[in-house]
């Protein structure tokens, strides 16, 4: 069996099949990165999985999951101004959380070097938007390298780390979902571990590190000057790719994954435009672009999401008075979604209809019913939503937050009618309560999110006296992104720690009404929610149950584990379908005659469903039907 951790630390050069996220970790090792931090978010958590495959004692760098992306960025910055090459990684919208710190980075002299790895998500596969983080790079004068595949992830990180250290500036490595998750064989270089140097090299003389008033202006001059240095480097870097078909008519300027989709689509083309693929998507290599534009009558700018390249390249052509037609986005749809081969086919065909056959229709009919994501069998959130729904009036307002419990918005629960971002539910709920005496407001929150971004909203609700009820859905882990530990888990990435109990935090913040219950006690939870919402003050219900996916995986690793499942007593079942239509565990299947059966692939035998059956037809795991129907 191949051991990932062993592979990542191999001294000699080797080639191995890896995903982009794993290739990144080998690059961190080879680059001599000393500090890495993150907050979990798709598409980046597998970076930490790869890091975890290296035993802690052998790990050549420090890694932590911090409480949120801003904290992770600050930690990496602190380490880097002490002389250690650092890296912070997180998902696209994580940069919004980190932004207050991030936008300052380029003003600083980061002597150790610092790479910011972003997992952008065109197509919003697992995010609340598909924001194009190149805008942040422009706003903050930060260079961006954008790889297209795992091989480039490896090589571009090495370049980002080298540049960052050389110029003492932050460099972004912008990944997208299917670059993170693509797999291919990558050839890695040798690794000679450097002598560890733990000297704390922070020196105010390297600064100033205090960007206020006139100092901030001076620092901005330095940031802009450094960006020009990087621009000159971007002109010449061997990481740019030009594919010259000797076509004086047509060219394409592109970047990242859309480049691969373009190459794919052109396999079927009769003629081939020349291609210039940028390694640096900020700052742009202006002279190289001018040279490419000058060699073609018509140039298509092929970029995913927003028209960041297009506007700059058009301005450049205008300034240089180039006699070239530049074709950018053609309508709103070109701004939306991932540039898959199919999408690039449509975009390219709209630009040059003679180049390719008419693309197939986008609307292929799906012959099977849709399969939205579900809460897992046994999930404590299901019991919670089932009970909470019964405690609320249909007109009450429920506010969702980010986490597995977001899925409560789906039928049959429809709990959580508004969603924004991490930690937003309490304050949004507080706003919904203003002038509102008719409709109770209930907000939901997960426990990892509680520490991440929820505390200010909760403090505000206490401080400004907003009478809403927050239901803290405590499952002991960061479940949605693959069970990372958080401050109340009793473990961090590296070792066991003291838990920071949510109840004591709430008490410390001055919350006066705190209720606690295991969510499987549905009747009690319903009663507590009714009590809490009847209060005229801010209240919190801690609705607790361990993540059953995590729990079951841990059980399965033990010897002698046998999956149990509940049974349906068909004599008692009156086909009222409460189990299917209200409780909604995916374990319950509907047969052709309207009867209910148990999917034994799925059922854990947890029994949280038993209390939901009006005719008591669900029998606990291991319990056979008693003689004679009731």
């Amino acid at each position, binding site marked *: 069996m191949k051991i990932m951790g062993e592979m990542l630390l191999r001294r000699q050069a080797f080639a191995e*099949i890896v995903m982009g996220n794993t290739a990144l970790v080998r690059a961190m090792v080879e680059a001599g990165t000393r500090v890495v931090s993150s907050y979990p978010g798709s598409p980046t958590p597998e970076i930490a999985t790869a890091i975890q495959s290296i035993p802690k004692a052998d790990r050549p760098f420090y890694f932590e999951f911090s409480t949120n992306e801003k904290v992770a960025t600050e930690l990496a910055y602190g380490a880097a101004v002490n002389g250690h090459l650092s890296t912070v990684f997180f998902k696209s919208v994580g940069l919004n959380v980190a932004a207050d710190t991030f936008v300052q980075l380029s003003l600083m002299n980061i002597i150790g070097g610092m790479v910011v790895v972003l997992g952008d998500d065109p197509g919003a596969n697992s995010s609340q938007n598909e924001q194009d983080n190149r805008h942040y790079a422009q706003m903050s004068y930060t260079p961006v390298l954008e790889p297209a595949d795992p091989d480039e992830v490896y090589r571009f990180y090495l370049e980002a780390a080298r540049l960052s250290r050389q110029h003492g500036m932050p460099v972004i490595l912008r990944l997208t979902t299917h670059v993170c998750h693509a797999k291919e064989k990558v050839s890695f270089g040798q690794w000679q571990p450097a002598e560890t140097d733990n000297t704390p090299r922070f020196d105010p003389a390297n600064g100033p590190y205090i960007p206020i008033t006139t100092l901030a202006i001076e620092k901005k001059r330095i940031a802009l000057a450094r960006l020009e240095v990087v621009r000159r480097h971007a002109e010449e870097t061997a990481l740019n790719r030009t594919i010259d078909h000797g076509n004086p008519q047509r060219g394409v300027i592109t970047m990242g994954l859309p480049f691969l989709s373009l190459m794919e689509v052109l396999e079927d083309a009769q003629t081939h435009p020349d291609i210039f693929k940028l390694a640096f998507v900020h700052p742009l290599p202006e002279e190289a672009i001018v040279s490419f534009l000058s060699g073609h009558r018509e140039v298509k700018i092929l970029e995913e999401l927003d028209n960041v390249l297009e506007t700059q390249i058009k301005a450049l052509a205008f300034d240089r008075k180039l006699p070239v037609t530049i074709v950018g986005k053609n309508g709103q749809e070109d701004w939306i979604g991932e540039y*898959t081969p199919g999408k690039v086919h449509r975009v390219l065909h709209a630009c040059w209809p003679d180049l390719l056959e008419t693309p197939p229709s986008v609307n292929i009919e799906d012959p099977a019913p849709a399969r939205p*994501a579900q809460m*897992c069998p046994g999930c404590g959130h299901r019991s919670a939503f089932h009970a909470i729904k019964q405690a609320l009036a249909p007109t009450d307002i429920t506010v969702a937050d980010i986490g597995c419990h977001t899925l409560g918005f789906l039928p049959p629960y429809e709990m959580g009618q508004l969603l924004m971002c991490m930690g937003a539910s309490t304050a949004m709920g507080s706003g919904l309560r203003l002038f509102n005496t008719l409709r109770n407001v209930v907000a939901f929150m997960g426990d990892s999110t509680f520490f991440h971004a929820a505390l200010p909203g909760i403090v505000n609700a206490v401080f400004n006296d907003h009478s809403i009820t927050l239901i803290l859905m405590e499952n002991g882990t960061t479940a949605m992104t693959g069970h990372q530990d958080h401050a109340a888990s009793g473990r961090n990435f590296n070792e066991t720690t003291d838990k920071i109990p949510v109840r004591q935090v709430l008490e410390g913040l001055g919350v006066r009404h705190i209720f606690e219950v295991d969510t499987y006690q549905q009747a009690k939870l319903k009663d507590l929610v009714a009590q809490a919402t009847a209060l005229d003050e801010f209240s919190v219900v801690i609705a607790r149950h361990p993540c059953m996916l995590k729990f079951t995986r841990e059980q399965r690793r033990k010897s002698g584990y046998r999956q149990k499942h509940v049974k349906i007593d068909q004599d008692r079942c009156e086909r009222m379908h409460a189990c299917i239509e209200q409780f909604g565990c995916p374990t319950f299947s509907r047969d052709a005659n309207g009867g209910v059966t148990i999917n034994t692939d799925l059922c854990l035998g947890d029994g949280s469903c038993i209390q939901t059956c009006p005719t008591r037809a669900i029998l606990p795991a291991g319990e056979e039907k008693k003689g004679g129907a009731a």
Partner: protein
Amino acid sequence: MKTFNIYLTGVGGQGIGLLSEIVLRAVDHSGQRVKSVDTHGLAQRGGIVVSQIRLGDSVHAPLIPAGRADLAIALERHEALRAAGAALREGGCLVYYDTVWQPLAVRLGDAATVTVSDIDALCRDRSIRVIPVFQPDLPDIRMQNMAVLGGIAGNALIPGVELTHYRLAMDDLMAGTMLERNRDLFDQRANE
């Protein structure tokens, strides 16, 4: 070498990840050029998991252009129909494990469940070869993926990939009892 596209699909929790990694590495062991990508947004929560594997010297993108899969591998019946209808090319091949994890709309009574004859009818229309796999006596439902892998290998569904390549890939990824149990099942199904 001609391009060959493999589309793998199932429901979160069925073991698509391991199955895909074995196929990917088996292709690599066969000496062919290969790329793949997993798409699993919220899949851990009972949604659809898709993995795409592409063989060939003229493959660039990891994602298969729509309707160009040569082989679809599905671990569940609804997902088998979806793959046959949306991902496979005319005349492709579908291999699927015949278990049913009803989607929400079916459980709520708002949509009909997919039947074996739905799959057969659609595949007949599109000239798709269908290979259903089912093994009632599996000791662990998490081995359904290995039963399917045995079916793929036994029917030589991936050009140039032989039994030894699959076994090497399994050796790369598993050890101990897990490897033994999975390899036994794989060998049994592959030799049928």
